[in-house]
């Protein structure tokens, strides 16, 4: 696919200084071949991954799961249970790896932090007036600081889609920069909410914008709009992080979120990661799945591979 060449362009770090420079750069990115991207994604879905390769893929996918609960009905008890599951997804099998992170609302962070303290499982918190992002900047930043202070070491922020779609790229850029600063040492994941961006060209632009502004991860969706992560959208984002590393030397992670429910789906994504950006990204530090029900399916498939018999949903926790 088209690689973005940036050698002829001005220094990328200067782009954020003016609206015009940003616009010129983002609109100068090559357009996405929609049919090509969709066909490529569909083609990558046809690979057959079996036996030992499948076992490895499942364990990797488990380590990449951001176990998520983002409901108005979340309670301290529920998020504690979820955090316990993150540490030991399959209590019957100690060889089962822990997940990548737990992802909750800022108000729930302290309860999760209690459980995860001392473990290698990260604690992600959505912030910046998730999921709409339609709040004044001071509130978004306060939201972010509160989450970090409560113990989150990863922040999932939403971009200002209203400003992005209106073409006010500088405003989006500045918000990401400000949130990055407010997050301090915490990793910043930038949610593009691709379901609201309408075109793949916009997805590519938003990806670059988020990376230029300092995002450590780009994430597809909040999971709160009807269209969440899809294979082609993730493909466009993977190409963006690949090209960004080529241009700047900085590696950025990708997190598809929402709608990935089965082991089969997860493995398709892993195949796509391997084929698009290579094994450098096949690591929980660089690729994550934002999911909740996916974990149980991964555990069921894992049990099938270890015991030889198909398992059922009765044997795994409901969460």
């Amino acid at each position, binding site marked *: 696919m088209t690689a973005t060449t940036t050698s002829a362009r001005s220094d990328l770090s200067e782009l954020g200084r003016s609206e015009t420079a940003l616009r010129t750069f983002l609109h100068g990115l090559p357009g996405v071949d929609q049919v090509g991207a969709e066909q490529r994604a569909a083609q990558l879905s046809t690979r057959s991954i079996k036996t030992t390769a499948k076992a490895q893929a499942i364990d990797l996918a488990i380590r990449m799961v951001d176990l998520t609960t983002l409901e108005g009905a979340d309670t301290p008890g529920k998020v504690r249970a979820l955090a316990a599951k993150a540490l030991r997804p399959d209590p019957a099998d100690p060889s089962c790896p822990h997940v990548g992170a737990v992802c909750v609302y800022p108000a729930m962070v302290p309860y999760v932090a209690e459980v995860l303290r001392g473990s290698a499982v990260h604690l992600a918190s959505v912030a910046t007036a998730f999921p709409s992002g339609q709040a004044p900047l001071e509130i978004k930043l306060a939201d972010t600081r509160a989450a970090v202070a409560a113990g989150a070491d990863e922040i999932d922020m939403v971009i200002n889609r209203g400003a992005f779609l209106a073409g006010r790229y500088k405003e989006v850029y500045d918000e990401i920069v400000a949130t990055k600063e407010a997050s301090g040492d915490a990793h910043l994941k930038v949610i593009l909410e691709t379901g609201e961006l309408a075109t793949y060209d916009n997805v590519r632009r938003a990806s670059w914008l988020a990376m230029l502004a300092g995002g450590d991860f780009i994430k597809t969706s909040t999971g709160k709009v009807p269209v969440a992560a899809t294979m082609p959208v993730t493909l466009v984002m993977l190409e963006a992080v690949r090209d960004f590393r080529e241009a700047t030397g900085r590696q950025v992670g990708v997190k598809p979120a929402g709608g990935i429910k089965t082991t089969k789906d997860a493995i398709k994504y892993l195949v796509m990661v391997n084929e698009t950006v290579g094994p450098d990204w096949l690591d929980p530090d660089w690729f994550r799945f934002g999911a909740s029900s996916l974990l149980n399916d991964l555990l069921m498939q894992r049990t099938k591979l270890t015991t030889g*018999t*198909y*398992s*059922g*949903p*009765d*044997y795994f926790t409901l969460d």
Partner: protein
Amino acid sequence: MSERVAVRKTYKLFIGGKFPRSESGRSYLVQSSNVSLASRKDARDAVVAARAAVKGWAGATAYNRGQILYRAAEMLEGRREQFVALGIPGDEVDAAVDRWVWYAGWADKLAQVYGGANPVAGPYFNISAPEPTGVVAVVAPERPALLGLVSVIAPAIVSGNTVVVAASPSEPLAAVTLAEVLATSDLPGGVVNILTGAITETAPTLAAHMDVNAIDLTGVTDAALATDLEVKAAENLKRVLRPAPADHDWTGDPGLAPMTALLETKTVWHPKGV
């Protein structure tokens, strides 16, 4: 005008209300027709479909289930000639329709006959009611092709169970044709799932599957296989129905046992008013 070329039929599996080919792509030849040879994965998919259908089917009113089963009998009657063309005797088709109607009638009567009020030493109403077991795996009898199949499917689903049937390997055409009957009779997809192919391949998967609640071994003729399946089924304490005796009379009165074997009893204690 060139002579018309006959359209030959491929007999496929019946899973979740659809007719997919085997995931493995394999088939075998029966009466010069291609029939899908189901794999372990097809069995797994069928269990997933059956599990998904339990809530809606068990939750439907008994009256509604009865109506749908009666509708299936109507469709079966309408396809009489098709079954006869497959080599099923007309008498057997008639008996199968009658059997189906008989079971359909039981849908809203089973709870009254099999459940009831229990006398207890205390100020309580104590009521027992039968509930479906859940997902039932069925190894259909080798013969009679249609009557035998109907006699194992209907008693399982009438009470709200969903089934995954391993059809007779030598008589799969009748099974797939019955699936076509069921697909056109308002029966929700996934309530009946039919796998054609080798019993030795599908039955062990179904017997070991942790999400199957009962297994009916009626059609298992090999004693060693039956024992193996029972051992596998013990892992999650499935209800097990033993193989039918070789001289079983399929035309006789089946009694209530085929239905009641696949029920769980729920008992409720309710305080009486003073």
